[in-house]
Structures are given as C-alpha cells and as structure tokens.
C-alpha cells in the first residue's frame, strides 16, 4: 500500500492548473471492523428492490441457482438429497454457508474477477494469460485477501518479475501489452467502471472525460526509466498522439492524495491506487458492487457497467442502491465474502424466474397467453428500480462443462492445483461456449451440434463414461422409476413431475429394442440438451 505521506503534487497542464489537495496518507480503509453482517446487506437490498408481493423460487430450484452462482456447477445428487433431508426453515442458510466455504467457490470467483479485469484473456491472442492469473487469484482469495488488496497487487506489481506460466497477476500487464494507454483504459473499465476509450482519441461534447484527462490517466502507467531518486527529472510526460501536447499524471477526480514529485513507475501506480481508495465518488467500490450484482442478478444495477459516472446514473433508486451497497462494502473492509453472502441471502436473489429480460424484446407478432412481465423497469425511467422476477441466464462455458461432469457423477476438472495439462478439453469447450453476459446469452447452431452430437456429451451417455448411469445399471434392485428419478436429480437437481415420469415411461416402453443402458443414456442426453439444464433460472 502507498500509505506513506507524499509531498504535495502540483500539475500545470495545458493551461489548466490542478492543485491537488493537502498531504494525506492514502491508507487502507479504516473500517476494518467488519461490523457489517451479511444479513444487513440482504435486508437493505430487499428494502430497495422488492415490492409488497413477490413470488419466490421453489426450494430445489434455489439450491441449483445458488450452487451455480457460487461454485460454477450444478449440485450433485448427494447434495440435493442432503438438502431435501434438512429442516426446510434453515437449509438455505446452511447451503449458502457450505458453498461459500467450498474450494470451487474460490475458483469460481477467480474466473469471475479475471473475466472482469482481464477480459482480453477470452480472446485468441491473450488466451494464455488466463490460467496464471486465475491460479494467482484463487490462491489470494483462499488466503482471504480483500478486494482492494487484489486491486493493489495487480496495479502495483513489478511487471518485469513476470514468469511465463507461473501463477501471478501478470496477465493484466501482458494483455495490455504494457502500453500506458491500454493499461489506463483497462484499469478505468475494470476497476472503476469508466469507459475512457472514446476520450483516448477525441473530446466528445457531452462526455464527462476529456482527451487530456485520458492521457493524464495514462501517464500514471508511463514507464519511468530507473534512476537515482533525486536525479530523476520530476513527473513523466506522455505525448497525446498527433498533437504537440504532453500530459503529466493527474487524477480524474479531486482527492486528498498527492502524486509524488519524482516517482518511479511503481510509485506512480501506487499513487493511482491510493487515489482510487480515496476517491470521493467511491467508483472502485461501486464498480465492484455493480459487477458482482450482475453476476448474481443478471442485469447490473447500472448498465452499461463501464459508464458509472454518467450523469443520469447519479440520482434515482439505482444510484441510491449502488451508493448504499458501496458504503456497506467499504465498511466491511472490502470483504467480498460478506458482500456475496449478503446478496445470495436476500429475498431478491430468490425471486422466481420471469418471462422476459429487458435486453431484447421479443417481436410482438406472437400473441402470448399472459402479459409478459418486465423483469425490471428500465431505460426510459432510470429513476425506478424494482425487481419482480429473476431473468433466466445462460450457463457460461465453464458452468456448462463443469455441470456436465457433475451430472454424470464425475469429479470436476481441477485448475486450482497447478497449470499442468489435462485441461485442454475444458479449455476448448469453454472457448466454444464462451458467453459475454449470461442474461443475454445466445446459443449458436455449432454449440447445439456439439451438445447433441459431440464426443464429450456422448461419452457421458454411456455407462463407461457416466458414473451415475454405471451405478444405476449395476444395482439390480433399483426400480425403473427410481432410475429415472435419479437421472432427473443428477441433471436437473429436482425430481420429475408425474407428467414427466409418465412421458419417460411411455417412451421407454415404446422402444423395446433398446436395453436399459441405451434408455437411461437417452434420458440423460435429452435432459442435458434441454434449456432447463442449459440455463440458470
């Protein structure tokens, strides 16, 4: 942490004098007391977004939802059985607690944060940086690292210390190719929820951020040649391309933090982090809350997620919710654990799935039986923010792959135990099933073909490749209905309805040429290809 008092910084840039305020230690937030309990966060969420009458999701559907969101996979048959055997009044809290302390939860959150901070790793060019970054994050989260500590470690790392393939936060610098302008744009987007891309090239008449401010931010990521402290010639300057103007580092908003007078490149970035922590608009905390919200609720509180400073998002119910949650998050000492537990413990999280999401209206040509309720009152009226239901979300590639294995009774492929091979199948699969935003996920024909006819799923439809099927077929005393029931539990996390059971019985009876292995394999195949399996609802 850049917690040493810094000398007064003064920037005279482009005729605009920016006097930074007095010397203040940019320390970690003082509210380490963690006096905020998850239940308090849950209560505040519900006060903000719930109306008087809400429909909640049923019990097994809740278990599936929360297991997917916290651990990135569906619940196992055993977990569903245990859950249903517990006291119905306390079992959801027990399940949340168990999942939050599972190793896979840490890994799941590592993937989430990596995708937020280094989205470039989901492209071909930078695919290689994902594993070391996620392995590092998994370890740090397991150690109980706080959110602001992770951000600090990423931004103030020594990129020359990067060792290819070893766990570390290197990916952030690698994916931005070490360029000040790329690092500034990515830091603003990933850590502050600000999109400065347009300001990189021109001043937009209505945008809050100017081109000069973009390059002043980029100057914090300038490469200062190493040299003796006193001999260093003041602040680094960075030239705005195709102009004669040069910029020194200046913070985007006023804060009681100073830029050191003759910094090395690391001290510059330390000052940048210190400013993020002291920023009066609390963009860092708001961005964390907003993005975690989108992970658990689909649509974020403020969309687009990288435009938090937009004027119309500063008032109204959405702004109020984000404000309050950001305050609570800071008060926990940036404890992601508490914030996450608060979100999934809320009643809002348990809302029943709704008929549509605001992302894309279906064409009105098709009449529906009932009026499709909008999940959220959006766009035109940004002041209001009420949740009446939960949008159906697509599974990410990682969720789909890991869930397929769990559905077949297989152990999940591990990535938190090293970067060795053996993960190529998961990598290829997750790349093919990449989803940018789960609530707007679109399945492609190629993906559908892979799920129906690809080797992965088809291996799982045989007793050799599916431990659940193997054990059902090996046990002579399991009644046919119980076999069907177990496949439903394994794949969908619930019992079949009597209507579904009848359907399966009838279809099995209509295929006398097939043996029990083919029949159960067919049922498994049909269920994993259903949209119930392929979505989080």
């Amino acid at each position, binding site marked *: 942490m850049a917690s040493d008092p810094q000398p007064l910084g003064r920037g005279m840039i482009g005729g605009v004098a920016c006097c930074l305020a007095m010397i203040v230690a940019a320390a970690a937030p003082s509210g380490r007391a963690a006096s905020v309990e998850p239940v308090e966060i849950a209560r505040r969420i519900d006060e903000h977004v719930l109306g008087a009458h809400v429909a909640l999701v049923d019990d097994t559907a809740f278990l599936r939802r929360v297991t997917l969101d916290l651990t990135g996979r569906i619940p196992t048959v055993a977990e569903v059985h245990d859950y249903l055997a517990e006291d119905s009044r306390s079992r959801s809290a027990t399940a949340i607690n168990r999942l939050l302390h599972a190793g896979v939860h840490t890994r799941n959150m590592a993937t989430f944060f990596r995708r937020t901070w280094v989205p470039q790793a989901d492209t071909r060019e930078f695919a290689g940086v994902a594993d070391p970054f996620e392995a590092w994050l998994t370890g740090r989260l397991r150690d109980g690292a706080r959110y602001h500590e992770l951000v600090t470690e990423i931004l103030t790392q020594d990129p020359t210390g990067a060792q290819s393939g070893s766990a570390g936060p290197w990916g952030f610098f690698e994916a931005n190719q070490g360029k000040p302008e790329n690092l500034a744009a990515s830091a603003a987007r990933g850590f502050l929820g600000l999109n400065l891309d347009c300001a990189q090239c021109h001043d937009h008449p209505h945008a809050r951020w100017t081109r000069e401010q973009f390059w002043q931010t980029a100057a914090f990521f300038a490469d200062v040649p190493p040299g003796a402290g006193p001999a260093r010639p003041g602040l680094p300057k960075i030239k705005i391309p195709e102009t004669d103007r040069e910029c020194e580092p200046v913070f985007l908003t006023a804060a009681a933090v100073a830029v050191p007078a003759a910094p090395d490149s690391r001290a510059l970035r330390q000052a940048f982090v210190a400013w993020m922590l002291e920023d009066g608009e609390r963009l860092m905390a708001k961005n964390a809350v907003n993005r975690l919200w989108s992970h658990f609720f689909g649509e974020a509180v403020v969309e687009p997620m990288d435009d938090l400073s937009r004027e119309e998002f500063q008032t109204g119910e959405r702004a109020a919710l984000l404000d309050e949650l950001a305050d609570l998050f800071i008060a926990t000492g940036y404890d992601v654990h508490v914030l996450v537990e608060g979100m999934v413990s809320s009643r809002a999280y348990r809302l029943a*799935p709704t*008929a549509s999401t605001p992302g894309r209206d279906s064409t009105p040509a098709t009449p529906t039986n009932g009026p499709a309720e909008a999940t959220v009152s959006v766009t035109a009226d940004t002041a209001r923010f009420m949740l009446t239901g939960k*949008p159906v979300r697509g599974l990410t590639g990682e969720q789909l792959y890991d869930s397929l294995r769990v559905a077949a009774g297989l152990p999940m492929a591990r990535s938190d135990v090293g970067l060795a091979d053996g993960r190529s199948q998961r990598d290829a699969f997750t790349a093919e099933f990449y989803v940018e935003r789960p609530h707007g996920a679109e*399945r492609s024909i190629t993906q559908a073909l892979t799920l129906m006819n690809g080797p992965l799923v088809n291996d799982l439809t045989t007793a050799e490749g599916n431990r659940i099927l193997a054990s059902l077929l090996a046990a002579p005393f399991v009644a046919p209905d119980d076999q069907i029931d177990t496949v439903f539990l394994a794949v969908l996390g619930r019992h079949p309805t009597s209507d579904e059971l009848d359907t399966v019985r009838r279809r099995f009876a209509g295929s006398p040429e097939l043996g029990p292995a083919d029949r159960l394999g067919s049922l498994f195949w049909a269920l994993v290809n259903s949209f119930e399996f392929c979505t989080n609802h």
Partner: protein
Amino acid sequence: MQPGRSSRRSFLGGLAVSVGAWTSTSWMPALAAVGTGNRQKAKSVILIWLNGGPSTIDLWDLKPGHDNGGPFKEIATTVPGMRISEHLPNLAAVAHEFSLIRSMATREGDHARARVASITGYTPQGAIKFPAIGSLVAHEFDVTNDIPSYVHVGGQPAVTGGGFLGPQFAPFVVGGGTRRPQAADEGAASLKVDNLESRSAAAKDLRLALLEELSARSGLPASPVAESVVSARIQALRLMNPKAASAFSLDDEPEAIRDSYGMTTFGQGCLLARRLVERGVSFVEVSLDGWDTHGNNFEQVKTLSHQLDQGVATLFKELRERGLLSETLVVCQGEFGRTPRINGQAGRDHWPSTWAVMLGGAGIRGGQVVGRTSADGAHLESEPTRTADLMATIFQGIGLDPRKQNMSNVGRPIRLADPDGTAIEELV
C-alpha cells in the same frame, strides 16, 4: 398452461416444420409453415471479408510512379481505363463483372469498432443491438431452408448474435470461429462442419422424442435465453438433415473445380459460398485474414492477392456460368484501408479516410469506377462514399428497400440502412 408457453410453441413451429421429414419419428407437432406471403424473389449476397483492413491502394487503386505507390505495377482489365494490381490477373480478366468504389471514406480506425460499423452499417449507440447486414438480409428474404440463411466461413463474425432480429438470424460459423489459438491455415479440412451426425443411430429417435416431449412440458417461463437454446437446437436438427448437411461436403465437387478455386481455406470457402447460394442461402461471408500489414506490406499483400484473385475470379466465373450472378451480389471489402504513406517497416497503417471496395453481380452495374483519389492516394477528389451509402447500394442491388424499418430491442424502429446514406447512382 404456463404463461408464455404458447409463444414458444408457435416460435418452435416456424422452425420445426421440416425436421420430422427426415427423422423416422412423428414427435414433431405438425404445425403449418409460417406463411412467407408474396415476397419478391430472394437474392443472395456473398461478402468477401478482407479481415484486418486491406491495403486497397495495392489492390484496386494503385498510385504507380508516386512515392506512396510501392513496387506493384498496374495492369489493364477487360474494362477500358480500369486498371488494378498486377497480382490480380484473373480478376482483371472478369473486370466487366464488377465495379470499384474508390471513394470510401469512413471514420473508425480501430479494428473492432470499424468492423462493427462496417458490418452493421451503424455507429454503435447505447443499448441498440444492431444486427449484421447478413442477419438483415436473411431476415428480409426469410427463405425456408434447412441450411441456416446466414453463414460465416473461415473467421470470426464481427457480430456473433442476431442482434435485435433474434437468434434465428445469427451467423452460422463454419471454420475458424474459435476463441482459442489454432493452426494458421489447415486448408479445406477446417471448413468441415463437425458433429452433423447423431452418434447413436439406435437411440436417436428415443433421444429426440424425449427431448421434445420433455421440453414441451417444461414449467419454465419463456425467455430470450431459453428461446435461443431452442432455436439453435432446432436449426441444428434441420441442418442434420442429410440433404442439408451435404451442402458442406466439398468432396462432392469435381477435383478440377476444387482446384480452380485454389486449395486454400479461402479458395475452398469461395467454393462453399457458391454451393450455399445455389441452395438458397441468403448471405455468406467468406473471411480472408492477414491484411493488417503494419510491416512487410508488399510481400504479404502479394501472397494474399494470389489467394483472393484465384478464389474470387473463379467465383465470378462460376456464378456467371450457372446463371447465378444476376441474383447474387458479391462484395469485397475489409474494415478500412491502409495509409498511402509507406512506414519505416515497409508497412502501411490503419487508414479509414480513403479506401476502395469491389462489388459486382445482382443489381449492380459492372465495369464502373466510382470516385477518384489524389495522385498520392491520401485525398478524395470526388464526393466521399460512406458506409451508409454502401449499405444502401447493397440493399437496393438485391431488391430491398434500404428505408424498410424493423423494430429494435429498445422499441425504436431502425431502417435497414442508416437513412443518411443513399445508393450510388452509377451502380444501381
């Protein structure tokens, strides 16, 4: 009945009609085809996408004798006065089939933004999910076909979904497409469509019957995400129809024809495009990557020109011979051009200010040269052609009204082409 189910049912119905025809089961409800009404005769577009920003000053608008011109020579074509690169001799021999627009002037110099602007015809604004032109064309013609109506060959589409038109109009990607590294040029083998056949002949019917019957009993409400899963599955099932799947069997073509396109991924992609438009596909993109030539421009452009020349010249010839050129529009472009000035690495950088597009076929007058650039290639000496003008030209060429509106996801009607644009008079 669950709310929303009927909408999913009828949605399913539109797509599902023909699946039952090739499976032996009768599980698919026999719903009537959605009437296509009396639309105009469907045409097709083949977009040859030069990914990375082609150096059009070294292809279509050379500056011999100027410092900016580089080492390439010009050659005459079948059109008097139209001269193009010496490395495009086969295209020069069919130049009467196409025209050149040498007055392209656009604003985006960043790959991603320029791609989206080029392929949607609109500058990204707010929450509007602009569809690709391929989705728009597929949606307008709405051809009933077991093959997806918008196919992207050999690369990554700039817009992966169907935008506000919905998932049925998303591009079906053949070859390329992966987000993970792969071998550079695997030849025609990479154009194979994987997983087109069921792996379980014996249980296939039971599997499909269970899937459809259980899906129909789902208590989940309809949602765009679920709709997209169902839509993709039904389109995939229709594509598994052996007759539809055979469109992708390049092995069915005589060897001489395969050779004539060039045995590269791109050449075979052009052949695949011809097979697809023969089978009624509305929009095919064939991607040729490698045009981002910041260094060593001329060696790379020369190599790429040979592929381009062989593939596209053969495509024009074959489309003409088969009587398809009058209903198929071929457009050849990238996201922008490259700097007239040659940089220190014998390369050229991004340059949206002056570049060129080649197009020919359906509805487009051939043998024309639209616009003129200065002797150094850096300035226009004619009216600029914007993306919106090009879009309007394409739509009008295939008989669609560029002003036709579709309802967008934000409840605002959006025209096929940005109304700022007008079709290029010399071409339509």
